[in-house]
């Protein structure tokens, strides 16, 4: 078990090393994160000022800003613009062969790549989150138990997101190119997962549907835990459904992968 863990942690380590090779790219990545937060801040402060709102859907300005900042951060951590493109290219060009010839699980190998590629963001975001705790006292992580619930919720968010990407990417075994599917999904999720507008702002009928899907667990669930918007019972219920979705998506992913690999033609050399 330990040696298996070491095997996959080594993949993670390689990703960190690779990310550190490109200093300029890392710097641009950090600037992009900060500018995203700045733009959101400007938009919402203009909305509050222009409309003279005290609260929006029970959120005061600072509460909403914290909620949205956190949503952007979680949304980034579970996103895969780069590594999903790489995986699709690997299947289309036959580069996936290099994983298939080694005694590793392709699913877990790429999960580590997925996490590894976002590692830089993890570090920057952790620092930002620590900053939030001091800048907005009492609005985020106001007890140790919130942190304890938040961390598994964050992991589930990343895992569910990865599973959805994995399933979409597996279609490349048949269709060759599925980037348009991934891009459409990414764009839809910017809104539907609550990355830019809290899903609490959605009409109730849409919200009711989202609450039963894995989409809820991508952003809203961990952010709601961190900002203490859920009761303990709601958190427990949420975890049960989230774990159910983790299992379903893992099984579907594994099934589609097995079918795909049977039809895979190992293009290129």
């Amino acid at each position, binding site marked *: 078990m330990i040696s298996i863990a070491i095997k996959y942690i080594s993949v993670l380590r390689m990703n960190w090393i690779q990310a550190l090779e490109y200093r300029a790219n890392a710097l641009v990545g950090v600037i992009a994160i900060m500018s995203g937060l700045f733009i959101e801040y400007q938009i919402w402060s203009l909305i509050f000022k222009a409309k003279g709102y005290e609260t929006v859907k029970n959120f005061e300005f600072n509460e909403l800003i914290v909620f949205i900042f956190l949503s952007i951060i979680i949304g980034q951590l579970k996103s895969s613009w780069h590594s999903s493109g790489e995986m699709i290219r690997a299947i289309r060009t036959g580069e996936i*062969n290099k994983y298939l010839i080694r005694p590793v699980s392709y699913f877990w190998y790429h999960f580590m790549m997925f996490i590894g590629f976002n590692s830089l963001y993890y570090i920057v975001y952790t620092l930002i989150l620590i900053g939030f705790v001091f800048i907005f006292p009492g609005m985020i992580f106001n007890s140790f138990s919130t942190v304890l619930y938040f961390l598994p919720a964050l992991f589930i968010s990343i895992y569910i997101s990865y599973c959805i990407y994995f399933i979409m990417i597996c279609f490349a075994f048949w269709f060759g190119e599925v980037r348009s599917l991934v891009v459409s999904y990414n764009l839809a999720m910017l809104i539907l997962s609550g990355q830019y507008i809290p899903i609490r702002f959605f009409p109730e009928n849409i919200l009711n549907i989202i609450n039963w899907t894995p989409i809820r667990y991508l952003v809203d669930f961990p952010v709601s835990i961190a900002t203490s918007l859920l009761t303990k019972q709601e958190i427990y219920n949420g975890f049960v459904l989230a774990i159910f979705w983790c299992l379903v998506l893992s099984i579907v992913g594994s099934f589609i992968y097995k079918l795909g690999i049977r039809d895979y033609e190992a293009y290129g050399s």
Partner: protein
Amino acid sequence: MDIKIQNLSKSYKIFKRNPGLKAAIKSFIKRDYFLFHALKNINLKISEGEILGILGENGAGKTTLIKLIIGLLHPTNGSILVDKYKPWERNHDYLKKVSVVMGQKNQLWWDIPASESFLLNKHIYKIDDKKYKLILDELIELLDVKDKIDIQVRRLSLGERMKMEIIASLLHSPSIVLLDEPTLGLDVISQSKIREFVKFHNEQYNTTFVITSHYTKDIQEMCKRVFVLNKGEKIYDGDFKELINNINPKRKLIYELPKNFDINLIAKISKSFTFELNENIITAELPEDNLQGLLVELLDTTPPASLLFEDLPVEETMRSFFENPNKYIK
């Protein structure tokens, strides 16, 4: 670990279209698929410790065969059994015992030094520290890349990258190594280094090598036995030298006569044998028996100033073979 292949076939469903925008639109709506038979009814047994060369022109099915043995492809029909493993099941125990090098962008991470990729393989294959160091040092020494392993892979030359790929593929001491075009694009020195290395590794560790190459010289130097494919079908399986002799049984004799040789005696011999005479040098390309006969006659009449036997170039021989393989294969 023996490799047993029985009645193996592999077909791909492929679509084709004519060039141009109109054809692209037509193909977008309706595609004309056809079945391409990459391998047809292949039977092959490779014993442990053998070096087998797979020969064939482009599209003959060499790489497909390698991909089937490593388990990248499922056979359409037939079976492959390596020891007790079916390769396409990709059992991790099986994958720990085999290795493949296909091209120069195989296992290594492009943007970081090869040494990091070696470390990753150490963890993937669970190689203990002592063994890892021992094997790595030996491979680095043999392939002469000590000062290159800490340089970004993308900054290495083709030959250096291939050597690194070979190191990465051998770190876990596999019983079977599949090399697909290992010397493609390499300079003469690198080619020769890799050939020497394969022979050494085979002798030292009894590793089975299956090698495809367009360079007949690779096969000639490394492999005693060859398996020849033509359009997905086996056309020869056996001793390489025997194949060459079947295709072109001639050898070349260069016989330098003394300056004061008697032209009449040579003219007499020329009635029985075909050869060329340039000043005082006789050059003959004849089957072995005839060549021996000519030599005896020449030695009887005029002792040589020097003499030399040459095998005819194997590359040329194989080219004429592939132009019309049916002519040579019974």
